[in-house]
């Protein structure tokens, strides 16, 4: 039996990956497939889409540069914000994850890739690299397209050539996906290409998650765009379709298959510019943008984790101020923050308020107050009362996870025991 006929016979046992069914609508929209000869055949089509060929070591790659001029009130604000952000970073010596201190604005590279799969192994190829830069005139978008998998050196060299050592990457999930992928592809042709510089890198997915993961169904870029930047895409090709479209392009040799992916990527990198601005303003120029109470709260939480306490204080206060209901949790966190800042009086006030404001205040608020009464005020009776309040509250609470609750009950029991003993001692002595 020939190998081929055996292969066909055993097809059931061979796991050939399922071909993904394309949505019907998309099929309708597909433009008639034209076949091209290899060679320079596709150059015309690529040029029509704005791409110019580019050669390296006998290989060819395509590159497109497009300027979106600044236009209108929205863009004037954008430029203004970035200039003020730049001065802000120069004046404030924060080690904040969003900082681009020491970089001029045109060094920021808003960066995204499209790949042939979601895995991060050696067989996953990047076929489109796009990035946006801020220039005097507008947002300049550059895209590199891999014409065929055998032109990878040209493709990556075009991208590396355009790069300066002091460029600063801004991406969305680039730290764990796009950049490791660039490194992996670079490893294949590391002998032909210069070394990959190590850039500074701001990953906006991390920031978006801090602010919005509690409120948005997911933190995918398209969802964040829609809810937070009010950018609504028309006829967008979802990123998950990108691999299939690239395979179709290779198979049919028709660059038009890629049009949707190219537009999608172009929009992605421009969105990152606006997204950075939006997040940074919410954090640092909070007076001029409207944020919700919960946004302020999670920004405060983030600042607190970064040990930037004054900033955290501002946002917690705003969170309380913007809240339409009495925001017990806000007072509670503000109380804890003041404790960290060494402002005991304010800490106690806020903890007490958090208890006043809610029928079910956080158990920890009572515990904190009990600690304060015991150690600072030396008022054992008061400490005991507070601890008992905490205990009865804890018994009612069923929101906490079992494990956490057990630990809390245990700790609280110890506290109660110790306080009872202290009290007995005081009475006796």
């Amino acid at each position, binding site marked *: 039996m020939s190998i*081929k006929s055996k292969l066909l016979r*055993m097809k059931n046992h061979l796991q050939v990956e399922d071909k993904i069914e394309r949505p019907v609508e998309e099929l309708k929209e597909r433009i008639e497939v034209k076949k091209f000869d290899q060679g320079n055949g596709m150059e015309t089509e690529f040029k029509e889409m704005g791409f110019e060929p580019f050669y390296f070591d006998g290989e060819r790659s395509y590159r497109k540069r497009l300027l979106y001029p600044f236009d209108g009130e929205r863009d004037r604000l954008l430029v203004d914000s970035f200039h003020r952000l730049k001065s802000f970073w120069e004046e404030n010596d924060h080690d904040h994850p969003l900082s681009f201190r020491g970089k001029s604005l045109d060094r920021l590279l808003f960066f995204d890739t499209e790949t042939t*799969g979601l895995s991060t192994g050696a067989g996953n190829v990047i076929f489109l690299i796009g990035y946006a830069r801020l220039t005097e005139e507008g947002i300049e978008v550059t895209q590199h397209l891999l014409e*065929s998998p055998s032109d990878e050196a040209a493709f990556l060299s075009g991208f590396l050539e355009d790069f300066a050592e002091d460029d600063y990457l801004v991406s969305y999930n680039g730290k764990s996906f796009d950049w490791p992928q660039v490194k992996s592809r670079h490893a294949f042709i590391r002998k032909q290409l210069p070394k990959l510089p190590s850039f500074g890198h701001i990953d906006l997915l991390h920031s978006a998650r801090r602010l919005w993961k509690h409120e948005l169904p997911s933190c995918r870029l398209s969802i964040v765009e829609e809810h937070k930047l009010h950018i609504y895409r028309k006829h967008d090709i979802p990123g998950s379709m990108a691999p299939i479209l690239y395979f179709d392009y290779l198979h049919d040799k028709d660059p038009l298959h890629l049009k949707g992916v190219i537009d999608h990527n172009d929009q992605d990198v421009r969105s990152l510019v606006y997204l950075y601005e939006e997040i940074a303003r919410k954090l640092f120029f909070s007076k001029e943008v409207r944020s919700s109470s919960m946004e302020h709260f999670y920004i405060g939480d983030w600042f607190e984790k970064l040990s930037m306490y004054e900033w955290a204080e501002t946002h917690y206060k705003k969170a309380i101020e913007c809240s339409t209901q009495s925001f017990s949790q806000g007072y509670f966190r503000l109380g804890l923050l003041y404790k960290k800042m060494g402002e005991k009086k304010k800490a106690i006030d806020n903890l007490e308020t958090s208890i006043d404001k809610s029928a079910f205040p956080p158990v920890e608020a009572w515990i904190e107050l009990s600690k304060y009464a015991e150690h600072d005020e030396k008022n054992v009776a008061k400490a005991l009362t507070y601890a008992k309040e905490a205990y009865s509250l804890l018994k009612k609470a069923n929101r906490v996870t079992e494990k956490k609750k057990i630990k809390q009950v245990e700790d609280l029991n110890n506290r109660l025991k110790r306080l009872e003993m202290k009290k007995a001692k005081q009475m006796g002595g």
Partner: protein
Amino acid sequence: MFGKKTLVELIEELRKDSQVTHWHEIPEENAKSVEMPADLDDKITNALKNRSISQLYTHQKSAYERVMAKDNVVAVTPTASGKTLCYNLPVLQRHMNNPEGRALYIFPTKALAQDQMAELNEIIDEMEVNINSYTYDGDTPANIRQVVRKAGHVVITNPDMLHAAILPHHTKWISLFENLETIVIDELHTYRGVFGSHVANVIRRLKRICAYYGSKPTFICTSATIANPEELASELIGEPVRLINNNGAPKGRKHFVFYNPPIVHKQLNIRKNGTKVVNELASRFLKEKIQTIVFARSRVRVEIILSHLQELVKNEINRQSIRGYRGGYLPKQRREIERSLRSGETIGVVSTNALELGVDIGQLQVCVMNGYPGSIASSWQQAGRAGRRQDESMVIMVANSSPLDQYLFQHPEYFFEGSPETARINKNNLIILVDHLKCAAYELPFHRGDTFDGEDVAEILEYLTDERVLHENNEQWFWMNDAFPAHNISLRSAAQENVVIIDQSVVENHRVIGEMDTFSAMTLLHDEAIYLHEGTQYQVEYLDWDEKKAFVREVDVEYFTDANLAVKLKVLEIDKQDDVGQYSIQYGDVMVTAMATIFKKIKLETFENIGSGPIHLPEQELHSNGLALTLSKDAFASEKEDHIEQVLMGMAHVLQHVSCVHVMCDRNDLHAVPEVKAIHSEQPTVFLYDRYPGGVGLSESVYGQINEIIKECLDFVWNCACEGGCPSCVGVASVDPEAEVKKWVLKILSQTVTYE
């Protein structure tokens, strides 16, 4: 009542037992030692001296010399012969010669890797040099992984990890692959059959990546005793190999006893149930707190024996002193059992062959085997569990009624003097090859004219291009698919998907207690099946076949279940054929359909049948290789189907057993099916086929030695002590004395032999 008699006293007691049919004493043997190699670095010599090693055993030195001369080697080493120095020594010396050099150790399981790292690190600590050795497996934390990739001089891993995590991400391992000097493959003999065929392809991929990064490592393999270590090693690594077998390690005295349970039914030659005898024998030792291991062939047997033995300690606080160990337990549970065996907290363990491998469980004194483990090599591996070091030890093999066991007990010389079995792989099994070509293409593009370690694969690459998995451009094939191929390919099991076993005894806390391959699940996890796990009985309440989940609940019943599998066979294409005596034999492609039909409930104490029920599961299909022994209707006493069927079943029974011995495989890997009127020839036929898609070369190997195998079958049935056939020789079909199955099996077998 515990702890009165010593092992020596118990050995003497056993000597008087009339059921002992053979007593083999293996005398102690002194060490054959030689001087340390002159070129060995002082740091290594001193480190070994501190561990009181001042000389080497002969085989250790030979291995060292060959490896340093850049030869690939395979060292055949029995248990506890100091095999680790065979590879650690050259690897350490190579590091002293070139500190940039790297080594990769491959162990079949995670547990072995952990053991070996500990041992290697002890020597390294003594040497006071900076050699980083790390294990890299599924448990390695993410932050450590990066360190291992960049700075691991010795990376210790398993084939699965190599296949799914290291090779597909080779760009993260550049410094390993650029500097790889040595690859160690321990427990070579485990790489046979399907698993071995997969691993051979993983090694083809590994070599391809090494070549890409410009390294050409030497291979060091170690193996238990098998007939063809050199052949297996060179098949597996695709390179010529030197054999090292001048073992110089000392051995303690060992008693190897064959114990045949008494006959309880003379006419049918039925013997007392082997499991019960094993229970009695093991109890004798365990009562005296002598550390004992019991090997059983199946998971079910393990659990049955375990529940009996645990009765011994039911009044003790520490019920953990006797435990089970088998596949299907979760890894964490296994590690815990291994620890408690080493510490001596556990005195008895009941295991399947999962413990055959070199997992370090310290030294046990007695080994009891419930039945012949299926191969000589496997028996010695299990026997090696008792008395790993230099003291006296005892191994008792208890025969089952199976033909294989009875054959062996008739011919102890076959066991003690015969050559061990041959281990085979078929790395060009089309399904396995295609799977790994996909992985290989994912890792690096293929150029036109490239081979896959010498194998021309252009035709398959073209097929994959047609399937739009690869893309051809500029004389190269590129991976063009959004899947990650290694994730869909398991090296271990034929079935791609496992059935997860979920215990729902506690309503609010369902938990996963184990998993099982789909083929086994058909007969072990069907609705109403009794599934035993760590001595606890569970009943399967619902098997969700589509979702591959079995929901079980704890029960306490007095029976276990045993399911029947109905199998049909179709010959697709005949590749080879030959005459055997008056008949003929064909080898080629077959299609097998299997369906679980009914199950029986069998009482635990008496093993009587107390009920049955249907199984409703879809048919499973399998394309494989097989052989057909085609007979003729005229050969039988009558043309009645009943008669022909019974005789064929008898033949299938004995053929399967003897064939499995000869090609060194489990009975589950090579199936036998009788058909009164085979579709392709319309004649009575016995089929033997590989139970893995595409075949792994077992039936082909049987085809090659069919005359010898039939002679053995004939000899065995002839010499069986029974009258008209018994479950040992011609199987259960012989219960009908009218059919005279034994007589007819003998007659037809004798017509099937070709005498030169």
